[in-house]
C-alpha cells in the first residue's frame, strides 16, 4: 500500500545531509515550502547548494537559510534580498545566475531525462560567456567564474547549451495533496513547484490540505505522485508571508 504521508517534518527531512543539492519551489513567498525550509534549518543542515528562483525579501524561507549561513551556493535568476549580495561579494556564498526560463527548463529537463538542451536565452551575454563571477575571495577578488556555455547556431541564431538539473532533494509546496503524492497547486503559487519536484531524486511536498485518494480527480492533478516521495502538512506555525515591495521580475 502506498502511503506517502508523513506527520513530522523533522524526522522526514532528517535524511537530507549537510552539503546536499536542494531544489526549492516558489516565486518569492508565493508557493514557497516554508514548513520544510524551517525543518531544514531546525535540523542544522549547512553547506547547501540551493536551487530556487529567488531568495525572497526577508529572513523567512530561503532567507532564513541564508541568514543562518546554511547556503554554500545559490542557483537562481533573481536573488532580490540585499543581504544575499553582501554574502556573495564577501565570498561566503556562490551565485550561479541563470535566466528564469532557462532555470525552469533545466529543472524540467533534469526530471524528464533530458541531459541538455539548446536555448537562445542568454546567448552572447556575460551569463553564458564565462565572465560572470560565480564567487569571490574574502578580499573581494573574483575567485571563480561561471562556466562558459557552448554556443551553436540554429537557423542563423545563436543558442547556448544548458544542462538539465537533477537535485539530490526537492522541497515543494502545493495546495492539495493525497497519500499517493498527487498534487494540485493554486493560482500562481504553482510557478516552479512542479519543476523543482521533477528535478529532485527525492521529493518532499508540503500541502495545505491533505485529501483522500480519489478526491483529486485524475484530470485535476497537476503533478502526479510518481514525482513525489513524501507528503507533509504545512504547519500552522508557518504564516503566509505578506507580499513584498516590487523590485523587478
Amino acid at each position, binding site marked *: 500500500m502506498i502511503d506517502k504521508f508523513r506527520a513530522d517534518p523533522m524526522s522526514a527531512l532528517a535524511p537530507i545531509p549537510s552539503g546536499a543539492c536542494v531544489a526549492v519551489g516558489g516565486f518569492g513567498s508565493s*508557493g514557497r515550502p516554508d514548513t520544510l525550509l524551517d525543518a531544514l534549518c531546525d535540523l542544522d543542515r549547512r553547506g547547501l547548494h540551493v536551487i530556487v528562483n529567488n531568495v525572497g525579501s526577508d529572513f523567512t524561507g530561503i532567507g532564513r537559510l541564508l541568514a543562518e549561513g546554511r547556503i554554500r551556493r545559490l542557483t537562481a535568476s533573481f*536573488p532580490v534580498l540585499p543581504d544575499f549580495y553582501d554574502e556573495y561579494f564577501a565570498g561566503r556564498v556562490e551565485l550561479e545566475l541563470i535566466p*528564469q*526560463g532557462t532555470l*525552469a527548463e533545466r529543472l524540467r529537463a533534469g526530471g524528464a531525462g533530458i541531459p541538455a538542451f539548446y536555448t537562445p*536565452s542568454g546567448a552572447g551575454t*556575460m551569463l553564458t560567456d564565462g565572465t560572470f563571477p560565480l564567487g569571490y575571495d574574502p578580499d573581494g577578488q573574483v575567485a571563480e567564474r561561471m562556466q562558459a556555455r557552448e554556443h551553436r547556431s540554429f537557423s542563423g541564431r545563436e543558442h547556448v547549451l544548458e544542462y538539465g538539473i537533477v537535485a539530490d532533494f526537492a522541497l515543494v509546496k502545493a495546495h492539495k495533496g493525497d497519500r499517493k503524492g498527487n498534487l494540485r497547486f493554486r*493560482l500562481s503559487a504553482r510557478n516552479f513547484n512542479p519543476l523543482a519536484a521533477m528535478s529532485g531524486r527525492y521529493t518532499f511536498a508540503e500541502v495545505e490540505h491533505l485529501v483522500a485518494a480519489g478526491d483529486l480527480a485524475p484530470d485535476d492533478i497537476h503533478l502526479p505522485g510518481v514525482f513525489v516521495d513524501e507528503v507533509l502538512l504545512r504547519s500552522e506555525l508557518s504564516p503566509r508571508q505578506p507580499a513584498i515591495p516590487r523590485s*523587478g521580475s
Partner: protein
Amino acid sequence: MTETAATAAVGGRSREAIAQRLAADLRDGYVVNLGVGIPLLVPRFIPPDVEVILHAENGVLGLGPPAADGQEDPDLTDAGKQPATVITGAAIVDSALSFAVVRGGHLDVTVLGALQVSGRGDLANWYVPGRNPAVGGAMDLVAGAREVWAVMEHVDRAGQPKIVERCTFPLTGRHVVTRVYTDLAVFHVADGQLRLTECAPGVSPAAVRDRTAAPYIEDLAGRDGSGAGALRRG
C-alpha cells in the same frame, strides 16, 4: 522623476504619456509581457476596443489589475510579486510552460525598460556593474518575443544619451530591440538599422539628434503620431 535638465529644456512626453503613446500601438489580440517601471503604466492606456492578454513570467496569462486593498491573495501575484488579479478567461501555468510561451514565439510584444539600446537593437537592461546582479526573465523575453519594445527616458540622469552606438552596460540580448519609445521620440529597428519615425509633440528632430548617440535614418514622413501601424501575424 528622472527628468533631466536636457529633457526639461526640450519638453517631451511624461512617463504616463510615453506609456500612452506605446499603448496606442498595441493591437487587438496581442499577447504582451510588461516589465517594471514605465511599462507597468501601459495597461491603463490600452484603448477599450483593444483586448490584450497580459503575460506574467510566474505563469499568468490574462493578468488583471493589482489586487485591491483587502482583496490580496498570497497565491496570486504578478511577476514583481505584488498581489494581482486575473481577467475572465485567464489561464495559469507552471514556470516552464510560461517560458515556453515566451521562447516559443507566442508573445507578440515584450515591453521592457532599458539602461541602453544600441543602434543595431542591442539591449542592456539587467545589470549595472558594481550593483547587485539579477536577471529574472529578461534574457528569455528578449530572445523569444516577436517584438521587443524598449521604453525609457531618452537620456540618463546625467543627461547622457541612452541610445548609443555600442552598449557599455552588459547586454541582455543582441539585435533584439524592434522599437524604442522615449520621452522625445519613437524609433524602429529593422535589419540592424535604427529609424526615427516620430518626434514627441513639441520636440524637434534636431533636439532628438542632439541627444542620440547612434546613427539613424530620419523616417518622419507620413507619421501623424497616432501609431506606426500594426504588426502582421504569421
